């Protein structure tokens, strides 16, 4: 029985939830396995291999051959895949083929950088988007609503590198406030690091803001048309209270989904921003490894990205269920 109030349906059925989570995790593992095959096949299908791409123009048939032999690239693809899989399930990520560094070391630092930037952008973007969305719904069709929509939609319509270059031109070159490149190193304090990533963080915020803001606004407006909102209004509840306490909790489900998707984008889709700001994240590593056909690194970073997507989607689904009594108590 749907109720208009949040948490009106009692505690979630923990047993059902656990079963759902386990089932979804099971599916995720299968998905990851399929993805690893797809990544392997994709990289195999590209012309050339690591030996050729590293040696480039100076490759000789015999040096390429020696290179392949050393890296076991001369073995048939399925043998290489199975040996990689065998190591992987034992938790052995292996070493980068091109510079023999352990992949955990190579990826660990970059993954933490990627997560740092994503977290910083999310901390700014998510609350901002939701507040703006609520305000836009509250004052819909006013001048404020139109301005917010226009600005955020324009920001999303430009390619992200364009926004990045505009920001650099304005508040790095013309007005020297922030650094134009965001190279991090270990000697930096947290404050230094935050200062260094202001521009990429701002760029990402502008890129993801519109989605979440528009979704929040639409979901709330949708809910505002339902009879129980009318009832609340008739009872004399203030508009703000209606929107924040009555409408928003019921609009959460689609908002959570779009937030999760954008978070996944912040982790896995920011290669261009990384390039423009010279930010040492995982995306750059993935692109370089693909172009050099460094398969173990491609696999590892590809699977991390895939896990992030799957994990965030799973989380979004679970949160939607938790936030929606109808889904929580199916009947």
């Amino acid at each position, binding site marked *: 029985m749907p109720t208009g109030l949040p948490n009106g349906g009692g505690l979630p059925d923990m047993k059902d939830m656990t079963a759902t989570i386990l089932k979804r995790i099971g599916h995720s593992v299968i998905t990851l396995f399929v993805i690893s095959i797809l990544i392997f096949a994709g990289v195999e299908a*590209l*012309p*050339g291999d690591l*030996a*050729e*791409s*590293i*040696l*480039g*123009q*100076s*490759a*000789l048939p*015999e*040096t*390429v051959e*020696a*290179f392949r*032999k*050393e890296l076991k690239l001369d073995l048939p693809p399925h043998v290489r895949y199975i040996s990689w899989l065998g190591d992987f399930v034992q938790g052995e990520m292996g070493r*980068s083929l*091109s*510079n*023999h*560094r352990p992949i955990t070391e*190579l990826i660990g*630092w970059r993954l933490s950088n990627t997560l740092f930037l994503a977290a910083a952008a999310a901390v700014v973007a998510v609350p901002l988007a939701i507040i703006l969305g609520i305000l836009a719904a509250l004052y819909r069709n006013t001048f404020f609503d139109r301005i917010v929509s226009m600005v955020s939609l324009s920001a999303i319509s430009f390619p992200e590198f364009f926004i990045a*270059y505009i920001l*650099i031109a304005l508040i*790095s*070159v013309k007005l*020297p406030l922030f*650094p*134009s*490149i965001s*190279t991090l*190193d*270990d000697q930096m304090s947290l404050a230094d690091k935050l200062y260094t990533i202001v521009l990429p963080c701002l760029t990402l915020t502008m890129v993801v803001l519109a989605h979440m803001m528009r979704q929040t606004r639409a979901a709330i407006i949708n809910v505002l048309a339902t009879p129980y909102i009318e009832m609340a209004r008739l009872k004399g509840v203030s508009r703000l209270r209606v929107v924040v306490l009555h409408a928003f909790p019921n609009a959460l489900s689609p908002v959570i989904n779009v937030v999760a998707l954008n978070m996944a984008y912040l982790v896995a889709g920011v290669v261009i921003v990384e*390039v*423009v*700001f*010279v930010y*040492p994240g995982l995306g*750059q*590593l993935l692109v*370089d*490894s693909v*172009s*050099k056909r*460094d398969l173990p*690194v491609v696999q590892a970073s590809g699977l991390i990205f895939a896990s992030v997507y799957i994990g965030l989607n799973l989380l979004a689904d679970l949160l939607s269920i938790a936030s929606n009594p109808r889904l929580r108590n199916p009947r």
Partner: protein
Amino acid sequence: MTDLKQSTPPLSTDPISRRKFLKQMSALGLSMAILPGVFHGSAQAAVPQKGGRFRMGMGGAHTTDSLHTPTLADQFEMHTNYALRNNLVEVNQKGEAIPELAESWDVSSDAVKWMFDLRRGVEFHNGKTLDAEDVIYSIRHHMGPDSKSGAKGLLDQIDEIRADGKNRVLFTLKGGNADFPYILNDYHLTIVPAGTTGNEWEKGIGTGGYTLEEWEPGVRSFLKRNPNYFKQGRAHFDEVEILGINDVNARTNALKTGRIDYMNRTEVKTAHLFKRMPGIEIMQTAGGLQFTLAMLTDISPFDRNDARLALKHAIDREEIVKQVLRGYGTVGNDHPIQKNDRFFAADIPQRQYDPDKAKFYLKKAGLTDQTFPLHTSDLNTIYLDMATLFKEQARKAGLKIQLIKEPADGYWSNVWIKKPFCNCHWAARPTADMMLSVAYTSQAKWNDTHLKSPRLDELVKIARAELDQAKRQEAYAECQRIIRDEGGTIVPCFKDYVEAASTKVQHGPISGLLESDAHRAAERWWFA
């Protein structure tokens, strides 16, 4: 070693002998450090100052970069490597071979046996003293059947390397080579401690002017001056920070905002805007970097020299330099020797764009209706621009060229030397012999035109082993003529290196052998 000619200056027409030169230099306490060259700018620039952190923004950086010398290939890793390690021989800004870890050398009269005396008391960063075993290990590492080195082809000419005591290395070549010391300047052939293996390569141990503090491939290398450096008057910066910045706009902005002091690979399209900025110097260096169009001379229709000549007359080199290189370069003359090279034959007339001649040769070849497919790629922006412009120029001369765009991935393995007509480019080689024997003799490993000219082969062989400069000059001039008139290569242009730095950065004359002052910027430059 009685057959070694003593005190022969084999590589220079300079009346001062090499020994005398060195003696004078050491007497000045300068060793080989500052060459009596003319320095740019004001007189104060001639006295290098110590100190400061030199921050370089480098395009050509990859997370797959490595300090393993056999696989060095791009700018970020190459520059880091050269700041950490030294060659036996250095090629200076004038293109002369000067001593580096080798203090001096001598050669037998047939240029087959070479003897290198090592500088004594040079220490690696880990405290080990350099000796002949280190040199032999470092060179041999690139040879043999298991080698995956980019320098393997260069070293095939070595028959034997052995030590003669702790401080002397003897090379016996399979044939005479008067330019052998130049080969030892190759960036792969930097010297490491004997036994360096596996992960130890990434520690960057060498004898160079800087030691490795941090190494994050493709991102950042951080170096500190080696207080124990054997060269006087080199490695002036306290610290060097090399940042991998592949995006040219990001590099440009970083330089404009003062985040870096130097950037390589300035965009030629925006260099004129950059020039107007105060505090920034554009450095334009003529080198041997050349862009070519390679035709396989044994595949129809390129097996007919008239077809090749038709195409060679159908390209407007001046326009390509003007439009594609924006003036940052010089026209080529369909042979690989650059104007500043000591063996450049100035008397060969420059080939011009001549639609009538192109039509004439096309008709002579009986190919008036032929369409020539040209394989190009966005591997390098110049490839596409040049190919597109050439297509239009050729159309005006009545030649039909069809452009086929190939992916940058695997271009070198799937297109180059496989397709009968394609784009290519060559980095400078320090000697005419290296350029000719890398791509033009029948036995050349990368003969991308399948040119087989017995006369050319013979000339290259004679000139290689000849110690008489005048005779070499003559032989190389004929080589240039043969390649120009019979070869399968169109050389429309040589591109200058265009780089930019803050005016704080001071430097002597810049070498055009490789980018970034032949990758010795960190070692040679200083702050005002």
